């Protein structure tokens, strides 16, 4: 199986393209330089191209339509539904291609997809997703891949793929069931950014407990997460089963709530 070459751009070029799109200036291919991972060295090597992203684009377009207000802005009440749908769309689309984790960990690809690909369709999608209705402020640029390698999980489409990559269960009735649990804020702040989010089985247990015990975001932020952070200063969950993970999470919750 030949690995598909993925286009990548630098953060500086992503930033230049971002500025142009924000000002409504047409972006031309002289505004950025594309490199490939792996290096595109001969004509037999295929590259990720418009054909492969067309279906991805169509699926995202449907999501956009399903969760838009009448003025076209995104419905923030359904932010979790949007992000879960996008995670499934992006992960399933990418999984069908001959790509490896090394290529997909390259933020340059996600910066290309977010800023350059499909004549700015993905740029518009991210802007639509995060722009607050009636507010002037632009969303954070790290969502488009204008960030350091440490912030890989902050890039919107990269983290959508990563959510699926962490907890996707191909044999399950719903392979993306865990992606749809617990809501986008928990995924973003309390799973993708923290060390206890490194262990997939623990992540599945955590989203299960949040759903099953109906743990509200305030309790999550002020009690459970600080408690988990304190606990992992001298512990980790890497070898815990799903049930063992749930048990320790529930113990910490009960301890916090007295």
């Amino acid at each position, binding site marked *: 199986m030949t690995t598909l070459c993925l286009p990548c751009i630098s953060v500086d070029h992503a930033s230049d393209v971002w*500025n142009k799109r924000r000002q409504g200036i047409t972006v031309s291919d002289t505004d950025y330089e594309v490199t490939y991972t792996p290096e595109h060295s001969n004509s037999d090597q295929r590259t990720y191209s418009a054909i492969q992203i067309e279906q991805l684009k169509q699926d995202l377009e449907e999501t956009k339509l399903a969760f838009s207000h009448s003025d076209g802005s995104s419905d923030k009440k359904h932010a979790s539904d949007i992000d879960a749908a996008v995670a499934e769309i992006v992960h399933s689309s990418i999984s069908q291609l001959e790509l490896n*984790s090394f290529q997909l960990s390259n933020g340059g690809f996600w910066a290309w997809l977010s800023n350059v690909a499909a004549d700015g369709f993905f740029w518009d999608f991210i802007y639509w997703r995060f722009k607050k209705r009636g507010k002037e402020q632009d969303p954070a640029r790290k969502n488009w891949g204008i960030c350091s390698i440490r912030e890989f999980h902050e890039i919107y489409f990269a983290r959508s793929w990563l959510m699926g990559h962490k907890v996707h269960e191909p044999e399950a009735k719903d392979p993306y069931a865990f992606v749809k649990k617990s809501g986008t804020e928990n995924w973003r*702040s309390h799973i993708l950014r923290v060390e206890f989010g490194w262990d997939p089985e623990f992540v599945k247990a955590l989203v299960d407990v949040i759903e099953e015990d109906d743990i509200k975001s305030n309790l999550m932020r002020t009690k459970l997460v600080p408690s988990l952070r304190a606990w992992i200063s001298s512990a*980790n969950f*890497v*070898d815990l089963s799903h049930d*063992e993970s749930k048990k*320790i999470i529930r113990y910490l919750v009960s301890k916090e709530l007295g």
Partner: protein
Amino acid sequence: MSNKVFSVSRRDVAFNIGRSFDELVRLRKNETGEFQFESGVVVEEPIGCDFKNEYRPVLRFNRLSPEIFKKLDLAPDSLNVIVTVADTALHLRKIVTKFCASELIESSTARDVRVPLKEQANMGFFGGLEIGVYLKPKHSDFESTDKMIWHSSQVLYAARFEFKVATEDAVFRLHFVPFGDELKNVVYCVKWISDDVISGVASDSFEVHINDELKNEFKLLESNKTFGPLGTRFLFAGILREIIEGTLKRIGDVGDTEIEAAGDSAYGFVKNMFKAAGFVDDWSMYIQMANETNITDQSEVSEMALKVAQIIAESGSALSNQYYPQSLGSS
């Protein structure tokens, strides 16, 4: 008659019996070479390094003295040694192998464990990797929560070996942004994206924008050996002062002096700046002051923000990196 000289190398000689957990394990980064690494950073490579194909790490577990366990009143057969590998960009970790700690006492030789990076299909190691060795209880006992060690997630001993990617570890990035005609003479501004400076990461709270029109001037300034360092220091001091004041103001708005903030939040970042500037004892006082009245009315707090910013800026880095050094924000 020729003299034959035999050299015998045994791994089970006395000095390989560990007397403390610190002697439990060593690492070598490839199939050959010395087991020289005890923990910490093993290697630092440029971005794009293919760690998966470049390295074949091997861990050597020394035999352990039973005395170590006796002193701790722990039975070695109640503990597991767990070896993990983690992809530091994807934030994914998995077990490579685990075995009972008693095997290290009973074994007549040291034990080598290969960490097969190539076999980790769902990891790419583009951002580096971490190999972990943990000594943990095999079982949990929820009836003994008063004991120091009672749960199988608890770590009795840990060694972590890091294969790093050399990056400019940054707390914030400088974004070159068009300011438009109205603000064409403004050099920079701190754009507050959110008033939450506590629970999110710093980059959720603010972005530092530099006037795109001045991009070339910035490049010239930083390459100017005479004025570059001074000019950038002034700029950094101003930016940092705005971040400190803006963060303190927003903490004040929350009105909670007992805040438990995430270390990578704007709050954590500013707290670390105070610490780095040597004002660690003053921090809680300023948080208290920030909570009492509107921070913008407090000249004393502004003065402190200025002092901290100046001290930090003096140790700042070049603008070309477009970053401020991570060391200030990650303690």
